[in-house]
């Protein structure tokens, strides 16, 4: 208890850490003791808790001791004790602040707990709206379900072991099926190394394996609202990983590497020759858009395509010339000619050989017939001795050798016809499959099997039975590689083979009908001809039928005059002819690589498959062998679904007057020495060198245009000009598919 000060009405000073201060302080009359920690006035505590008798206090106060009115005692002129009323302690300033702080904190905590218990609590705690695409997908879901679709561990029903990227891929797998998750560009470490530095694959892989894995949320930051571009990526982000640092496209970007002609061209088109020679002579304007622009379609590069297709781009000039090359069809099988003496000698087993094919050892063995005969072991020797032209008469040996080859081939053809007559298309396909496997040295892949199907497409076995009957005179001794079934022999002997044969019933010959179209006369003729009562006059009449006219729109027919089985293509893009061409190229390629388990055996043919397909279509067997690339017959198209490293859209560029001429960017290579025509002419003389010709064509196509240079783009795409951000031309998400295509 301190003594009162005469000059200081508030003395002694209150304890600064006291929660309560005297109620008389504001009047300058604070007592020295002050209230206790609970805010009870010192006069109200303990034995002094009784009511204060202010008058008595005043009267008895000596003024030497402290009391609640210490100051007042020293200044008797101030209001009296009773006038001030009882002391009501006040909170100290700091304690007032403390109370406010605690109350506000409790209010906040209570408010948050209340919010967490609300059914729509996610709406309160979500840190912002979703981007428009995610909002569209998740908009119809309950709020509580929305969170757990992307956030692992956000709700009890999602395992804490699941990573957020895995949840992302639950929806995004469909367009990134082969993505290597948590790896840059969705590529595996090996693929990345092969891109970065193939020479140092081992060390590079070790280096990359130390690299931190990527996460979707590193770049795609959600909850920035509806208008936020979730795919936006800065150049600096790209350069976070890329070792070669540069400022912009114009300053430091690596020079283009074989851009944009990295993809192999599949159509051999000589732009210069067409512009100067073909269009020039017709006095027509050579417009790029005529063959490359189709405004009705939208591809990966806008409305610009490698080719808008044969019908739109080429047909007007090339349709007639293509038709002319196959006007009489393609003789797949043609009976070779033997000497009459051979037909007389039982030892040669050629007794029933048609008389019209007995004028000496001559005849041409087509490439198709070679494949079919190559499956017959007895013909291997003869085939291997055949010249590249396929003509028996071109055999370098003497008459005896020609006789041996011709007889062997004739017996082979005889067995082939008997086989197909007996087993139908199955025998045809079996032979092709055998020779395919033997040549390639492996089982055929689905594409190659599909080729064989196409090569047999619509082949009518009845034509082979007709050969049996009309060319070989229904004789018993059909020399087949398989034993002739009793049924067929008896039927042949019965001379009523086709009359009672349901196979030739018009209603059952569905496929043949498709092949022959409305021209049923041939089959009818067959029926008539197989009748025992067929007259010689009728034979003459039917022999005069010109099959090529009857199946002008495509199909198989017998050439009775030249004793041949012919195929009439269905104009441009005939599947059967294309399949034969591709199959022969495959076999030829395999033979060159030494993959064949059989010797080459003269499978090459100078003319190959008719139609001049390979003049325009570059057949690249090494690409066709890859299961995912069978598109040799159509121009290369950028896949719209596969994301490549580089993206480009011609459409906005073509709107600029300075770029409307394609030649602004696609500059013809002035260093090209030979034109495409000269290459074809050069290889026309070298028999059986189609592979070399194709290689030369490929070389020409690769060099026809000069590679684009960086400066052609950076003229416009620079700071202050058109955008030059990395993502303007490059995709981040590539994946194996895109990587392979980009290569």
């Amino acid at each position, binding site marked *: 208890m301190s003594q009162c000060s005469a000059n200081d009405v508030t003395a002694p000073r209150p304890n600064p850490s006291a929660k309560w201060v005297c109620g008389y302080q504001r009047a300058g009359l604070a007592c020295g003791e002050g209230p206790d920690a609970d805010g009870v006035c010192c006069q109200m505590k303990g034995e002094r808790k009784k009511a204060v008798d202010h008058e008595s206090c005043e009267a008895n106060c000596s003024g030497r001791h402290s009391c609640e009115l210490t100051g007042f005692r020293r200044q008797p002129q101030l209001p009296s004790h009773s006038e001030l009323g009882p002391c009501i302690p006040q909170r100290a300033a700091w304690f007032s602040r403390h109370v406010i702080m605690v109350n506000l904190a409790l209010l*906040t905590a209570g408010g948050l707990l209340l919010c967490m218990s609300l059914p729509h609590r996610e709406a309160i705690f979500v840190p912002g709206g979703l981007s428009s695409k995610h909002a569209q997908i998740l908009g119809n879901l309950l709020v509580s379900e929305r969170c757990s679709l992307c956030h692992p561990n956000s709700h009890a029903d999602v395992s804490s072991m699941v990573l957020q990227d895995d949840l992302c891929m639950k929806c995004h797998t469909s367009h990134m099926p082969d993505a290597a998750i948590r790896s840059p560009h969705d590529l595996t470490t090996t693929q990345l190394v092969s891109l970065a530095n193939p020479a140092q694959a081992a060390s590079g892989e070790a280096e990359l394996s130390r690299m931190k894995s990527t996460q979707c949320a590193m770049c795609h930051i959600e909850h920035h609202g509806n208008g936020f571009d979730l795919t936006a990526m800065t150049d600096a982000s790209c350069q976070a990983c890329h070792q070669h640092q540069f400022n912009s496209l114009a300053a430091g970007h690596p020079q283009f590497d074989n851009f944009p002609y990295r993809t192999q061209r599949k159509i051999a088109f000589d732009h210069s020759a067409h512009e100067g020679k073909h269009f020039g002579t017709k006095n027509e304007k050579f417009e790029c858009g005529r063959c490359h622009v189709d405004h009705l379609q939208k591809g990966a590069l806008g409305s610009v395509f490698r080719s808008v297709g044969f019908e739109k781009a080429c047909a007007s000039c090339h349709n007639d010339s293509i038709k002319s090359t196959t006007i009489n069809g393609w003789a797949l099988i043609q009976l070779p000619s033997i000497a009459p003496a051979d037909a007389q000698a039982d030892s040669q087993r050629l007794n029933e050989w048609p008389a019209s094919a007995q004028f000496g050892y001559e005849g041409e063995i087509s490439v198709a017939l070679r494949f079919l005969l190559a499956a017959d072991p007895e013909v291997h020797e003869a085939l291997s001795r055949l010249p590249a032209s396929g003509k028996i008469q071109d055999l370098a040996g003497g008459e005896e050798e020609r006789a041996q080859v011709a007889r062997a081939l004739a017996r082979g053809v005889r067995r082939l016809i008997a086989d197909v007559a007996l087993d139908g298309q199955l025998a045809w396909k079996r032979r092709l499959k055998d020779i395919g496997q033997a040549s390639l040295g492996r089982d055929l892949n689905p594409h190659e099997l599909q080729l064989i199907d196409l090569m047999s497409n619509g082949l009518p076995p009845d034509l082979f039975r007709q050969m049996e009957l009309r060319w070989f005179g229904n004789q018993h001794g059909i020399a087949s590689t398989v034993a002739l079934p009793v049924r067929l022999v008896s039927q042949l002997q019965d001379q009523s083979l086709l009359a009672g044969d349901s196979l030739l019933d018009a209603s059952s010959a569905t496929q043949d009908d498709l092949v022959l179209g409305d021209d049923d006369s041939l089959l009818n003729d067959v029926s008539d001809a197989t009748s025992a009562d067929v007259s010689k006059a009728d034979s003459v009449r039917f022999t005069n039928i010109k099959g090529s006219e009857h199946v002008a729109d495509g199909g198989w027919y017998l050439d009775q005059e030249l004793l041949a089985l012919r195929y009439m293509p269905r104009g441009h893009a005939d599947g059967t002819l294309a399949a034969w061409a591709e199959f022969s190229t495959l076999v030829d390629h395999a033979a060159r690589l030494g993959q064949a388990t059989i010797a080459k055996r003269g499978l090459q043919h100078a003319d190959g498959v008719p139609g001049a397909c390979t003049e325009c279509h570059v057949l690249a067997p090494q690409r066709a062998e890859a299961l995912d690339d069978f598109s040799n017959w159509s121009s290369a198209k950028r896949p719209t679904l596969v994301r490549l490293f580089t993206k480009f859209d011609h459409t906005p560029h073509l709107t600029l007057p300075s770029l409307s001429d394609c030649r602004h960017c696609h500059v013809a290579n002035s260093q090209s020495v030979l034109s495409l025509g000269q290459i074809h002419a050069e290889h026309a003389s070298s028999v059986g060198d189609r592979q070399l010709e194709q290689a030369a064509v490929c070389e020409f196509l690769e060099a026809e245009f000069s590679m684009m240079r960086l400066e052609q783009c950076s003229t416009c795409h620079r700071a202050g000009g058109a955008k030059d951000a990395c993502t303007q031309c490059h995709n981040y998400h590539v994946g194996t598919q895109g990587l392979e295509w980009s290569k």
Partner: protein
Amino acid sequence: MTITLLAVGLTAQAVQWTHNRLGDESTLTGWTLLASTAGLYLLSVRKQFVTARLGRVSAWLQVHVYMGTFASILFLMHIGWPVRGIFETLLAVCFTIVAFSGIVLGVMSRRTPKRLLAIPVDRRLEQIPADRATVAREAHETALASAQFGEGATLAEYYKQSLLPFFQSPRGVLYLMVPNGILRRKLLRELGDLERYLADRGNSSRTALAAMVTTKDDLDYQYALQARLRLLFTFHLSLTWALAIMIGVHVVLVYRFQGTL
């Protein structure tokens, strides 16, 4: 302040570096912000230790100001713009209020002492009411005494009409917010105008009352400046615990929804 600016610059560089390396700059700024905010609370902790030798509070306050400046700038780096989400917005508003009041408090705490020193009366806030009461009593006695002199009731009448409300009642809220000398000058001018109506003794009382007006106004000025500072301090401090709770919830939510908690 140089160190603060240096720290801001280094943090900005670190954020940019993290961003360029596809890192999570929000985590970097978030944890730095959390650490610096926690550092701001150290001043309150220091104040609890009155006797312990932990350095001068003024030094701690200086560190608090610098760290608060750093945290405010870091806060802007962390949130991005615009702020979205109800809870996030509340948190940002709370932080902004605390930070802004802190900045204003910092400015005022430097300007107020100078203004206080400019006036002769020097009293603590708690003392001022008592002093005002004393001055009011003295003025009342002086006015009553002047009524007994020959000049009649001129001075007493004026006291009753104009000076009594001034001495007896506190100043308004507007004065608390913007303390000024308008009323003081008005009263002194009016008292001066009474001179022609008073004799020597009356003028003596008038002079005494004028001195008391000046003293009362000085006390009011003192009170306004100190009260304003204390009010702002209360405002600054009252939200800090609420802010701490919201920051805690924010951190838990972030890591919970990232799947790492």
